[in-house]
């Protein structure tokens, strides 16, 4: 062994001093180098799973990603956490005449855009028209519009080409259409990527933001309802990894985050408040209703047998744990169109086998099914669905599209697959119809139609009252149950993790995506012990 030369005493002292200083500094930090603090009520930090599609509302996306635009742009109508329509830039709204085709809104007085210009009927018409011309991802949610015109200085009239009973809903923050952009912003849409041009409670601060990472919004000094501004700044941090989300929420670096069923137990153990809401159904969409790819599917008895082959309670528990619910109808409980007196698709293997035998397929058949691992990670849901079908003799040839959603969509419309495994909208019958049942949409590649269903839908669109529409939506649900085109399996719950100091957050089946800002102070989030 070589003898190590002695180290000068002064060196030891310096090293010790440095070590002590480092420990002391670290201890003083106490994890403080967070850019957020739950205790600082003037600063709210929320997590979002990915960067915004665009900061321009006309090119932005829906759902929870609306946070990137809704903080800076007020909608005409606000959708609250419990699913209520609340006046925002529009103080009132109504259909004119019968048939739900002409919709008129009355605007709030005294509201100014960020640039100081006045929000009036002409500005709103300009913004709505720009939204339609920009052809962004949400344009289909605006409805088929014939004209948009100003009626005086504070009224706007929208005329639809066909009845639209959800006109007010289409003007809420989640559909982007109703987020009003100033005339200056409309004239220079590129500027909207760097500066906001709305009337919202907060304004986008590009200087303090980092693209794809952190989006900072500062209190708008000219907001029309100052009592609803609960924060000086709102920071939306992009955190995709569920474990990083868990770390951030448990250490107080973010105050609100989208949760995951896999990390929910740890979050709960750390004292995090968890909010849940049903949102959509994982469904087996039997695309091939004419039997061109898999002949047996043309027989309604086979489709009904498939619907009866799932032990949904067991599947929901296995796939979603505490945060999965069996789903027996296309519409979720608590939404328009849900049939509370109808059990929907039950689990009955004997009846399923009997139906298969009656249809002439007692020994089963093989069918190609497409799914995507982009949404169904590790394809656990798809494999569970495939295995269940084996119980009635159906052998699934599962094709997993892993490269992206556009490839999956191409596969769905390719007419090579008899069925697709995909989430379907479960909170709004009109949205469900438009996304999954209408002719020309990707989830209906064979353009299947049913006269009875179409008739009910058209009646529902023009229904004079809400109760009439609810009744018609329920009749549609019943008809869909008989047709067994789309078979719901289970509804995963949308989870939200909220820090201990965050209050007034609410979610529901009709609005599972809460937002911190609201036109009414009683609906806005607050921070405080």
């Amino acid at each position, binding site marked *: *062994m*070589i*003898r*190590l*030369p002695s180290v000068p005493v002064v060196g030891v002292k310096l090293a010790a001093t440095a070590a002590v200083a480092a420990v002391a*500094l*670290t*201890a003083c*930090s*106490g*994890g*403080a*180098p*967070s*850019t957020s603090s739950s205790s600082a009520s003037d600063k709210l930090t929320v997590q979002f799973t*990915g*960067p915004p*599609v*665009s900061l321009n509302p006309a*090119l932005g*996306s829906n759902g929870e990603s609306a946070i990137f635009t809704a903080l800076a742009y007020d909608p005409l109508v606000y959708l609250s956490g419990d699913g209520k329509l609340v006046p925002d830039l529009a103080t009132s709204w109504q259909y004119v005449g019968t048939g739900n085709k002409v919709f008129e809104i009355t605007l709030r007085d005294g509201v100014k855009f960020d640039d100081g210009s006045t929000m009036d009927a002409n500005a709103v018409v300009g913004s709505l028209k720009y939204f339609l011309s920009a*052809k*962004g*991802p949400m*344009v*289909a949610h605006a409805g088929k519009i014939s004209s948009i015109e100003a009626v005086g200085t504070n009224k706007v009239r929208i005329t639809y080409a066909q009845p639209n009973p959800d006109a007010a809903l289409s003007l809420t923050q989640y559909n982007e259409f109703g987020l009003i952009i100033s005339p200056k912003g409309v004239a220079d849409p*590129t500027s909207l*990527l760097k500066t906001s041009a709305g009337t919202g409670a907060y304004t986008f601060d590009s200087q303090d933001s*980092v*693209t*794809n*990472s*952190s989006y900072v919004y500062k209190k708008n000094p000219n907001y029309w309802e100052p009592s609803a501004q609960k924060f000086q700044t709102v920071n939306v*941090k*992009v*955190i*995709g*990894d569920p*474990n*990083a989300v868990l*770390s*951030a929420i*448990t*250490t107080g*670096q973010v105050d609100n985050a989208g949760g995951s069923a896999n990390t929910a137990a740890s979050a709960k153990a*750390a004292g995090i408040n968890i909010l849940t809401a049903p949102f959509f159904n994982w469904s087996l969409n039997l695309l091939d209703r004419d039997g061109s790819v898999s002949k047996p599917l043309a027989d309604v008895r086979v489709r009904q047998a498939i619907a009866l082959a799932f032990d949904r309670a067991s599947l929901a528990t296995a796939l979603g744990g505490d945060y999965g619910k069996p789903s027996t109808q296309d519409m979720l409980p608590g939404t328009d169109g849900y049939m509370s007196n109808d059990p929907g698709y039950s689990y009955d293997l004997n009846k399923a086998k009997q139906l298969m035998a009656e249809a002439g397929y007692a020994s089963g058949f093989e069918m190609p099914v497409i799914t995507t691992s982009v949404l169904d990670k590790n394809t656990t849901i798809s494999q569970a669905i495939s295995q269940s079908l084996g119980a009635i003799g159906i052998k699934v040839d599962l094709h997993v599209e892993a*490269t*992206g*959603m*556009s*490839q*999956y*969509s191409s596969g769905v419309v390719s007419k090579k697959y008899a069925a697709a495994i995909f989430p379907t909208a479960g909170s709004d019958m009109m949205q469900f119809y438009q*996304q999954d049942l209408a002719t020309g*949409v*990707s989830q209906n590649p064979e353009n299947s139609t049913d006269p009875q269903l179409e008739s009910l839908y058209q009646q529902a669109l023009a229904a004079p009252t809400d109760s009439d529409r609810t009744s018609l939506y329920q009749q549609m649900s019943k008809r869909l149950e008989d047709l067994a085109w789309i078979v719901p399996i289970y509804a995963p719950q949308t989870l939200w993790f909220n820090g201990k100091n965050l209050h007034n957050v609410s979610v529901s089946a009709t609005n599972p995506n809460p937002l911190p800002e609201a036109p009414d102070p009683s609906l806005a989030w607050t921070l405080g012990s």
Partner: protein
Amino acid sequence: MTQLILRRLLMSIPLLLVVSLVVFVLGSLVPGDPAQTILGVDATPDAVAALRDKLGLDQPWYAQYFHWLSGVFHGDLGTSLYSGEPVVTTLAERLPVTLSLVSLSTLFCMVVGIGFGMLSAVRGGFLGRVVDTLSLAGLALPNFWVAVVLVTLFAVKLRVFPATGYTPLMTSPFYWIVGLVLPVCALSLAGIATIAKQTRSAVLDVLDRDYVRTFRASGVSEWSVLLKHALRNASIPVASVIGIHAIASLDATVFVENVFVLPGMGSLATQATLDHDLPVIEGVALYFTVIVIVVNLCVDIAYGLLNPKVRTA
């Protein structure tokens, strides 16, 4: 030495061109349509076609590449298909984060790795075996697992370091360094192990040479023998390993930045790949290549300083 640097810099030009071309071709071959990704699965074919036309995606890949390349010669790396932001601006925001991470990790690995290696070589015996075992463990433990363990222990349980986030150096040097402690540790484990092992072998080899014995016999102090002569001569292979670690840690930033939510180039590369945002992917690849060239150049210069024969080679 100047000639060496100039030669290396000239050689880097074709390298950059080849890398940019390969990345562009491979990126174009990856299935996926940015226009469809931007507009969503419900978008009409007309809307997708209009956006493809607007973004220039309807052009053949070589036309897109030459258009991009002509911009590069004017200092323009294009515009992100997704955010609409100039790629140069996006990268300027991200570069300091990744450089902080890589440079601190390299520095940390050098100091700790060489220190452990020296200690092990000098003391030998049990300590040497401990360093060997720790080296093996450092190489065997996956970085992502180490990262998760560090976050759970030091951020979630003990609350001594932040779990996520980055504070710019100019905003607060203290929070900058504190925020990087865990990511740097996660990134450095394998590097420390490799450098320690390499240092130990090299120092032991040098210490066994005749001239070292001569120094000792001549009464030269042990500190001088170790630091001035043994370490200097042992440093040549160690410098290579340090360079390799710096380059390898560039790759590792991809997951480290995701775990610790650092707004660096690794997380940007991940997101851009998912979005099929080719201009951003190209920009990241170009910057990464430049960093690799600079690191290799630094290693070459270090060789030159440590070994005069290299300067004239």
